[in-house]
């Protein structure tokens, strides 16, 4: 160990001498040259620009943060493997299930088809643009704000109530196959569905509480003196304390707000509507029309409780939702299929084969699992 410590000391001295433009020839280094048969080769080469440049480039090609990310993946994988091992010991049947899960995981890694449903997953984009993977516990304490993450699917912001000088925006990004919930600094809870992002201030300042949503989210807004505003492309929802679902995917023409409790005001285009519980506002981007319908709000908020519930929903809409949750592409082979309707409930946390099985039994469609997509054909 002493020899290693000595080598470290010598190396640092060589580095300092090179920075100070001295030849590496101090008494200590001369002594080291005598002791170590490899010293000459190193010192002669590292003192040339090419030799040092090559070494620096090699050294700086890696990053401790990347290493740490890989490390976390490695320990997560080992944990999963351990679970599988226990299952294999328990019973032969469990072994087969475990192998199936493992195969599905492997599939999920590549461009191949995902049969497994989505799960709690998200990442955070900080005010400085840095991204933080929320797959690991996170705890940030910055004086008057605390951010704590529970990797099982939620993140919480807390503030001591002191007014922040400036608004720092964070963005919670939930990719396809993910879902996540967040408690904002005012106590408002938001559940984000797959392929969604919410931009919000770390602590609210000013006269309104404003967040920006892309995708789908269910809000339980905490009561407060300042109005809470959800902005989506082309529409705004203003509330004072209530629960509602907003769906606004960039790829859809319709933006939809469904009220579960309380009261909200929706502004879109030139229109404005105040919703009562059980009402839904739909804004169509094509003709900028805003209409209000009486609906069963439960249908639109069921995803948050682990279910898909559909009532006379056209199959294309159903498949769109599945596509985000499983991150698979459905290749619909005929237009007639798109307008087939489906009524029923599906569990979110089941495999894609099971769901397709149910859909094909109640509709005249067949699902064929191809390499990287699911082909939908008429029976």
């Amino acid at each position, binding site marked *: 160990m002493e020899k290693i410590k000595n080598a470290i000391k010598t190396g640092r001295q060589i580095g300092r001498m090179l920075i100070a433009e001295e030849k590496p020839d101090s008494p200590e280094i001369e002594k080291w040259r005598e002791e170590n048969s490899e010293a000459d080769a190193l010192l002669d080469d590292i003192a040339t620009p090419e030799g040092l440049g090559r070494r620096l480039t090699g050294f700086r090609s890696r990053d*401790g943060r990347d290493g740490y990310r890989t490390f976390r993946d490695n320990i997560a994988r080992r944990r999963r493997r351990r679970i599988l091992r226990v299952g294999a010991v328990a019973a032969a049947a469990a072994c087969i299930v475990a192998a199936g899960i493992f195969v599905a995981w492997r599939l999920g890694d590549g461009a191949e088809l995902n049969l497994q449903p989505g799960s709690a997953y998200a990442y955070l984009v900080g005010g400085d643009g840095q991204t933080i993977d929320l797959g690991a516990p996170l705890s940030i304490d910055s004086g008057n704000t605390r951010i704590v993450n529970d990797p099982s699917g939620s993140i919480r912001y807390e503030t001591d109530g002191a007014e922040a000088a400036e608004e720092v925006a964070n963005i919670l990004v939930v990719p396809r196959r993910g879902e996540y919930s967040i408690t904002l600094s005012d106590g408002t809870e938001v559940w984000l569905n797959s392929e969604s992002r919410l931009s919000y201030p770390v602590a609210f300042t000013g006269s309104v509480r404003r967040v920006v949503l892309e995708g789908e989210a269910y809000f339980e807004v905490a009561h407060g003196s300042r109005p809470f505003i959800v902005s989506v492309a082309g529409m705004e929802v203003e509330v004072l304390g209530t629960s509602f679902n907003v769906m606004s995917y960039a790829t859809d023409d319709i933006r939809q707000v469904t009220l579960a409790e309380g009261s909200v005001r929706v502004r879109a285009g030139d229109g404005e509507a105040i919703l009562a519980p059980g009402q839904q506002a739909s804004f169509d981007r094509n003709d900028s029309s805003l209409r209000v319908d009486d609906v069963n709000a439960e249908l639109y908020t069921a995803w948050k409780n682990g279910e898909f519930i559909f009532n006379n929903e056209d199959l294309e809409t159903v498949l769109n939702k599945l596509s985000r949750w499983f991150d698979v592409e459905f290749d619909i082979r005929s237009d007639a299929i798109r307008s087939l309707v489906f009524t029923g409930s599906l569990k979110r946390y089941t495999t894609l084969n099971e769901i397709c099985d149910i859909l094909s039994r109640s509709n005249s469609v067949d699902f064929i699992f191809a390499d990287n997509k699911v082909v939908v054909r008429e029976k």
Partner: protein
Amino acid sequence: MAVESRNKPNDTSAGMARWESLFNVHYRELCYFAERLVGDDAAAEDIVQELFVSLYEKNIAPEHMDSVRPYLYRATRNRCVDYQRQHQLKKNKYSELPTNISEDYILAAIAETEAVALISEAIDSLPTECGKVMTLFMKGFNGAEIAEQLSLSPSTVRAQKRRGISLLRDKLPPLVFILFFETFM
């Protein structure tokens, strides 16, 4: 020696933060050192990752900076020697390559790693954007590629490069400076 100790459970956020800082402080150095011994960059990274995973699973986190580095060097060396032995066994079916890494070679590799790490730190002390530009230049990207990667205008990249070179002129010896100058201007 105070290096190995039982710690708070790893699955707390404080526990994970400690592992993250260990990576920030030692990862590049250990990979560089391992690559010197096994001559393969991917194998070097695997060896260092396996070392950290095995420490993690035993819930041993090296605590004190000064004594940690020698300990990690020794543990990495042991794994590299094992790796060489296994690979040599395979190779030796076909050829008679010598397999031994001498102690002097290992110690020189440690000294080299520390020297390079120290100089790299000087570069890291440059202002953020300037450091990013200089790092990419060092990796062999040209001005246009850097402008695109960092979403900067080519004129900003040129200005940052000039600034970086002049700051390094103060911090680093002409030897290193000449290297940057020749490579990047």
